[in-house]
């Protein structure tokens, strides 16, 4: 996509749905917006079909509001709750077979590099915990081993949400769920540690209780992936439907997790740190 595309033809402008007209007049495409501007501009994702209080929907909204170059970004997704929001977003979006997302993203990134040698095209994987930690773990890790220049973002609701509540590898040990009545019997998969060991040049672990941190780390992950190497962001996105808490408690649940087992963590390689200091150190972000 290019900024040019985000201009209606005069003959049909008045017929476009309001959603599009607002995006054109007041969206994030033409002028740089950050998460700090949330509420002052038309968001790329305005409506979504998620459950009330959905942490994943919030994680997706915060992530797409943090993209450094939305018009030149391609999101790669896969099956799961994360898909619902992305299908509604006004972004280039490619849905892959369950678990294939990092392999598909690797190919798209390489192809875009050949097709648009002079433009930065950001390829961002944005999927759930099941897609990354369970079904797609091999392909995810291999994209990191190969040093593919893509950012991988996990919206971690610690459950297979839209299929009725099965445990995922990211579910906490002992957690009882609709489809895990005896409780999960092994610990949360340490994907954040795996990212560090497997070649990611930058990693961050955050929760939806800290939108500004999400804004900062998503932008950093994408900008570093552009030039240095693979990056990883893991966002805790609590699920009221399956964990059976009131929808208005999502942020509180996330805040409590952030004070405990889901504390803010970040790592950066020496290369990435040097590149960041040289190019973005003066940035307000």
């Amino acid at each position, binding site marked *: 996509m290019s900024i040019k*595309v985000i201009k209606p033809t005069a*003959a049909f402008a008045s017929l476009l749905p309001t959603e599009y007209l607002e995006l054109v007049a007041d969206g994030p495409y033409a002028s740089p917006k950050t998460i700090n501007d949330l509420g002052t501009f038309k968001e790329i994702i305005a409506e979504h*079909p998620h459950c009330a209080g959905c942490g994943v929907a919030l994680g997706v909204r915060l992530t797409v509001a943090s993209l450094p170059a939305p018009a030149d970004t391609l999101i790669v997704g896969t099956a799961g709750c994360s898909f619902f929001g992305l*299908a509604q977003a006004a972004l280039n979006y490619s849905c892959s077979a369950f678990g294939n997302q990092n392999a598909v993203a690797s190919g798209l990134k390489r192809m875009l590099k050949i097709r648009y040698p002079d433009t930065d095209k950001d390829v961002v994987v944005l999927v759930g915990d099941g897609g990354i930690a369970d079904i797609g773990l091999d392909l995810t890790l291999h994209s990191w081993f190969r040093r593919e220049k893509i950012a991988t973002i996990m919206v971690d609701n610690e459950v297979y949400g839209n299929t009725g509540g099965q445990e995922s590898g990211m579910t906490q040990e002992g957690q009882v769920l609709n489809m895990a009545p005896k409780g999960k019997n092994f610990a949360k998969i340490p994907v954040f540690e795996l990212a560090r060991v497997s070649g990611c040049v930058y990693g961050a672990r955050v929760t939806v209780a800290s939108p500004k941190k999400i804004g900062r780390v998503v932008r950093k992950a994408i900008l570093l992936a552009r030039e240095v190497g693979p990056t990883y962001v893991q966002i805790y996105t609590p699920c009221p439907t399956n964990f059976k808490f009131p929808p208005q408690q999502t942020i509180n649940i996330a805040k409590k997790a952030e004070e405990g087992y889901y504390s803010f963590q970040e790592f950066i390689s020496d290369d990435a740190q040097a590149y960041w200091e040289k190019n973005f150190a003066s940035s307000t972000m």
Partner: protein
Amino acid sequence: MSITPYRVLVGPEGYLPPAAASRGILLPEKGEALIEGAIVPEEEAMQAIATKLLSAKNPFFFPGPQLLWDWKEGVALKAQAVKKLADLAGARVIPMPDYRPKYPMINPAVEINPNHPNLTIWHNKIDVCVFIGVHCHYANMALKIIRGGTSCYTIALCGEAGHEDAMISLCCMGMPELARLTEIIQSMKGEQAA
């Protein structure tokens, strides 16, 4: 061996109608067009389109992203010409701004997408529709869904090779062809008025 040729007729044909191409419908060459699966001269198809539009109870144009967004030189002018054509034919317009599967919130009165075109057709009681400026594979998908589930008569004004899955399809649709179709409708309206 003699077989009855497949005809691309108004639906509802059933949940999953076959792709017309798989039943032996061939695309037209430049200067030709398709009417219900048969190759005819372009002029004949234009006459048929004009007749269909002017006799329709509730005709609609569905312009796609290639006409809605001002993405390259010439698009704005073509959009103008199409808008004029629709107005002349007394057709209303519902845009297809992109191809996202926007469930469940799509408003069928203001928007159509290729994943559920039947909703827009049912809700608006559309009996004749015109696809223009829709990318090929999305147009094919939507045309099949319409033929499968609705009784709407589909017309494709295609800038490329044409669409076997529409009941009438032109190909190679540029500014001159748009002008000629407009002229035909204009004169047919004159005759009707006379």
